[in-house]
């Protein structure tokens, strides 16, 4: 939230300086891609600014890694260190326990989305920057669905390999691979097909904020994916030997 306030405070100063726009326009498209800025989009809007500085890379990566780390700690970590031995000795099923852990992380994701919106809305109100609030809400919904998928495949790896280090290595490895593919795919036209292999392709904050795409389908697709991953994780966990 503090970082969002800092950015909204800086934006009016930056946007009034024509040199900044010139510099931004002169940046090669490959470099823009690395920072998550759309090549076709205008560079002087608040949406482009906040996407490049925050949503497209820092925020996405931080929340993705938060999801990976928390999910693997809640499941693989708790199995490995024995914290789940007594809870799993109660009549509660493993699936119910996984649902609780997934509920904890999903609620945390929801709180983080809410806090992001709160920081942004209060910052823009304070520094009198006009924004379309509903577009940010839509982006948060997309973000929530996107991070839910990452959390659920992290749970799946934790159920499959109930050792913290191993589950974390697979889940973080896959996330960083997706992230890498997204960057590589944006570097040249020839490699653009690589982007389609990346989960990050489903989360384009700038396009949503500028209302150039309707994220409805992505939200539904990602939510469906998260549910399938969760069901798979449940199935694997039910059959797994737990060294508790």
């Amino acid at each position, binding site marked *: 939230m503090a970082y969002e306030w800092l950015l909204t405070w800086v934006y009016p100063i930056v946007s009034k300086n024509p040199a900044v726009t010139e510099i931004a326009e002169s940046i090669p498209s490959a470099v823009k891609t690395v920072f998550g800025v759309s090549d076709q989009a205008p560079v002087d809007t608040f949406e482009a600014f906040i996407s490049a500085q925050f949503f497209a890379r820092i925020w996405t990566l931080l929340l993705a890694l938060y999801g990976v780390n928390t999910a693997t700690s809640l499941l693989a970590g708790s199995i490995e*260190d*024995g*914290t789940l*031995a*007594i*809870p*799993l*000795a*109660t*009549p*509660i*099923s493993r699936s119910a326990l996984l649902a609780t852990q997934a509920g904890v992380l999903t609620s945390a994701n929801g709180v983080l989305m809410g806090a992001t919106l709160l920081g942004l809305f209060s910052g823009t109100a304070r520094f009198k920057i006009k924004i379309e609030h509903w577009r940010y809400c839509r982006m948060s919904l997309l973000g929530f669905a996107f991070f839910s998928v990452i959390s659920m495949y992290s749970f799946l790896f934790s159920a499959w390999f109930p050792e913290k280090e191993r589950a974390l290595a697979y889940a973080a490895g896959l996330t960083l691979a997706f992230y890498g593919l997204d960057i590589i795919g944006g570097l040249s036209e020839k490699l653009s097909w690589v982007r389609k292999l990346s989960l990050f392709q489903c989360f384009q904050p700038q396009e949503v904020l500028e209302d150039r795409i309707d994220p409805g389908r992505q939200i539904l697709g990602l939510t469906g994916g998260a549910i399938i991953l969760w069901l798979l994780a449940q199935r694997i966990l039910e*059959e797994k*030997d*737990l*060294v*508790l």
Partner: protein
Amino acid sequence: MIEVQQLTKVYPKGRGIHGLSFQVEAGTAFGFLGPNGAGKTTTIRLLMGFMKPDQGSALIHGQDCWRDRESVKRRVGYLPGELHFMENLTGLEFLELIAGMHGERWGIKQKRKRLIQVLDLECRKTIRKMSKGMKQKLGLISALMLDAEVLIMDEPTSGLDPLMQKVFMELILEEKKKGTTIFMSSHQFQEIERTCERVGIIREGQLLSIQSIHELQQMEYRTFEIEVKSTEDAETIEESELEWTKVDVGFYRIRVAKDMGQLFQVLAKVQVKRFAQCSLELEDAFMQYYR
């Protein structure tokens, strides 16, 4: 009642348990003894439905411990060998959580209150700040407060001081009076001796013996301490087929199985300075299986 038939579980590195079979009758206590890595905890994990057996079955009150594990666990109070809790909870919060997961059955609250008093636990303390002994008490309360039909405990007195070990034994005897079936692994011979009717001895994943405590105590092994007068006498002892251990010059500890005749034949040839029979303890009988 606990019924284990040809239970086998082998880990990828080859350790595990092989074809274990035993029964624990309802309302009795069964002690499970064995060195570290013998397979005690693996057996308990299979009884708790944490792992699927490779072969064989484990049943509690006729229900399969793997397939019907949720239903089995309604009847079971469990204490793991290594205790790890959600450290940011207080002891009381943790006990309330576990009671809730068992559906807050009638009587849990009263029993919990009594156990907290008897075991003298500061339950409002955060678990992170608790000592190993306090955590062990907390684990014991979480298992005993449920008034379960079956109690499964992995080294229940580890970390408890002698006074609390005594309190624990009294609590177990109380449970037995109520008809609770008890299965516990232990290294504490005294607690097994005082609380269990039968004992199973496991080594390298194989069940070596199942005997009643009485039988084990009465196994015809005797240990004698014998001091002889001369070097010739000492040589006679050493050349004999007796199972001897030299304690000092001319001073031996001799173990005799069943037939005492051989001992007296050898003793008839020497001049004995001192002769004493060591008391036979369960530990002595138990140690036979470790040699």
